[in-house]
């Protein structure tokens, strides 16, 4: 049914045997872990999330595993097909260097790092049975063809804008095809009941993340933004079952809610927007928190925005499930791959209001064209409304940490 034409130019999958690079990758992760350990006053459940995230590649494989390369692909479909979903985006700067063997220089660092991790025989992608690569941006679109050398890949198109009248049917149809693909991989097509059960589980996660965000908006000091990201990414980037994550996350929510600030918090609050910040690429978060800023809320697809929106199921049919998933995952995304950024701008302005933030910081990944070009409008709109704005254009490498620090310090001094 969903037969993709076989590629007449398929190549043997490339693997890397660079021990120096492997050491560097391990060092980058260890360095980031060390910095996490320096965070004061962490809730008791955090070590579970750190372990789950860091040891994702070593998780035992109980069921078929399908790797995803974006937040736009709904994990519920994979779960309903009886597979474990796991996101394969990588944030390791050394992996980006490894990836440069295949993708020459001026390409998105996320794409390079992802390829870099695919090139490891002991990496997480090597344990996956299939890959889902939504064609969000140019890099992901072309990456799909490269990754097809490593395993079966399913790519699906995203509508060009958020006009639901024109595109909601197409988006739901693409998700149907996705479900058929997942069913072929696992041998178990997603049924209505299985989808609804998966949706109930992810809605529970969405509720937890929402409560965490609300608690942090009230007291940003209750949980470091890095710990929040670790917690959220531990559910997205690890193939372990979501149920265990939910149990621990509920404890975390209680701990965070119970936090009372010792004294009135005078640190500057900022809203973070921009490109995904993926473990272990927490460079910007490190510097922000070390300079004393409190990241009160974020719109990142690797942070709260990744799973804060629930799936709204008002009808019982299978078609309704796909439409609801399309509404949440595709049309609810704040990704710059859509032609209009109005919804992302609205969310930033709304969060600034809600958190009474002192300014907005954008993490613009160097060589990411959509974010670069969107900066034009974001900057001017924020300026019109007199909201201080700082744009950080940087890639994965850690060499410009001090340069970032100067800019962030100057920004915090002036807001």
């Amino acid at each position: 049914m969903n037969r993709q034409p076989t590629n007449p130019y398929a190549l043997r999958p490339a693997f890397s045997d660079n021990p120096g690079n492997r050491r560097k990758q391990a060092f980058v992760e260890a360095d980031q872990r060390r910095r996490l350990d320096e965070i004061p006053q962490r809730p008791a459940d955090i070590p579970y999330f750190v372990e789950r995230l860091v040891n994702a590649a070593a998780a035992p494989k109980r069921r078929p595993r399908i790797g995803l390369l974006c937040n736009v692909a709904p994990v519920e479909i994979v779960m309903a097909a009886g597979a474990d979903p796991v996101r394969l985006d990588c944030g390791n700067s050394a992996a980006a260097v490894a990836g440069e063997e295949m993708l020459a220089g001026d390409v998105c660092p996320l794409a390079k790092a992802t390829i870099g991790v695919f090139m490891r025989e002991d990496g997480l992608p090597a344990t996956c049975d299939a890959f889902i690569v939504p064609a969000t941006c140019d890099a992901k679109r072309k990456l799909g063809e490269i990754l097809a050398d490593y395993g079966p890949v399913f790519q699906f198109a995203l509508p060009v804008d958020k006009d639901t009248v024109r595109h909601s049917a197409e988006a739901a149809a693409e998700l149907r095809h996705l479900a058929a693909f997942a069913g072929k991989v696992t041998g178990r097509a997603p049924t209505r009941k299985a989808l609804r059960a998966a949706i109930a589980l992810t809605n529970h996660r969405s509720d937890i993340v929402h409560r965490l965000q609300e608690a942090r908006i009230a007291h940003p000091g209750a949980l470091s933004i890095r710990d929040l990201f670790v917690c959220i990414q531990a559910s997205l980037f690890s193939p372990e079952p979501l149920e265990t994550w939910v149990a621990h996350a509920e404890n975390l929510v209680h701990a965070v809610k119970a936090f009372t600030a010792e004294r009135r918090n005078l640190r500057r609050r900022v809203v973070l927007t921009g490109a995904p910040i993926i473990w272990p690429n927490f460079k910007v978060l490190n510097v922000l928190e070390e300079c004393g800023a409190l990241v009160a809320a974020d719109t990142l697809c690797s942070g709260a925005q990744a799973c804060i929106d629930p799936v709204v199921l008002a009808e019982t049919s299978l078609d309704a499930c796909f439409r609801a998933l399309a509404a949440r995952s595709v049309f609810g995304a704040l990704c710059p791959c859509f032609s209009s950024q109005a919804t992302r701008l609205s969310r930033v302005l709304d969060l600034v209001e809600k958190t009474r933030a002192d300014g907005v910081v954008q993490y613009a990944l160097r060589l990411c064209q959509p974010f670069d070009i969107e900066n034009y409008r974001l900057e001017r709109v924020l300026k019109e409304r007199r909201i201080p704005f700082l744009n950080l254009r940087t890639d994965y490498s850690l060499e410009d940490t001090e340069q970032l620090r100067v800019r962030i310090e100057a920004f915090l001094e002036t807001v």
Partner: protein
Amino acid sequence: MITAGLDIGSTTSKAVLLDGDRLLGAAVVPNAALPSASARLVFDAVLDGSGVARGAVGAVATTGYGRRLAGFGDFVITEIKACALGAVRVGSPRGPIRTVLDLGGQDTKVVAIGESGGVEDFAMNDKCAAGTGRFLEMLARKLDLPLEAFIAAALRSRNPIHMNATCAVFAESEVVSLLARNIDKEDIAAAAHQAIADRIGAMVRRVGQQEVIAFVGGGALNRALAAMVEESLNKKVHIPESPQTLVALGAAIAAGGRAAEAAL
């Protein structure tokens, strides 16, 4: 209260002693191996030069790339804020300074100052040598001229040419090829200055070029560059009396402000 501002930069360190509105002394020293040593050196230099005792200094603020590595000091402030504070204090005959262009040895900053004297926006070029003082130093060496002679040569040029290279490393090879074609050293020097002036002009335009525009930092002492920047921006720029120590002055002002706050 007597306050001191230390600007520990990449090539030189600067210090300023301030007593309220009165400037007591200023010093510029080339850097030692470690920032802490440079800080000590420049601080001692300014104290000696002004005759003020160490204990008489109420508060010390450090700024610049080595601000946290000085080993002493009461407050730390970024050079962007210090730049704005210094520019607001110094002012210009034509009116308040609203844009500051700071051309340093290893970085270039443009700071836009708002009506209330605060930093409205800023841009930094600190990842790439093109557009910094280092660019000119490298090309001067390539032409086998000391920096002063390099600048004088640029001023004497009569036949402007254009350099294509935007990268300092590529510029070096381009200079070699220009020499091979028997282009005058003066014209090459002028072209190098023009290349920087264009980059700087673009940076100032991005941040906003509200008058009065002030040109500070080590690079402001370069008259050829100043002239070309004016031409690129199509506006006159103001070079304060002591452009190299403006940032240190700002730090000294900040030290006074912070000490007053802490006293409350």
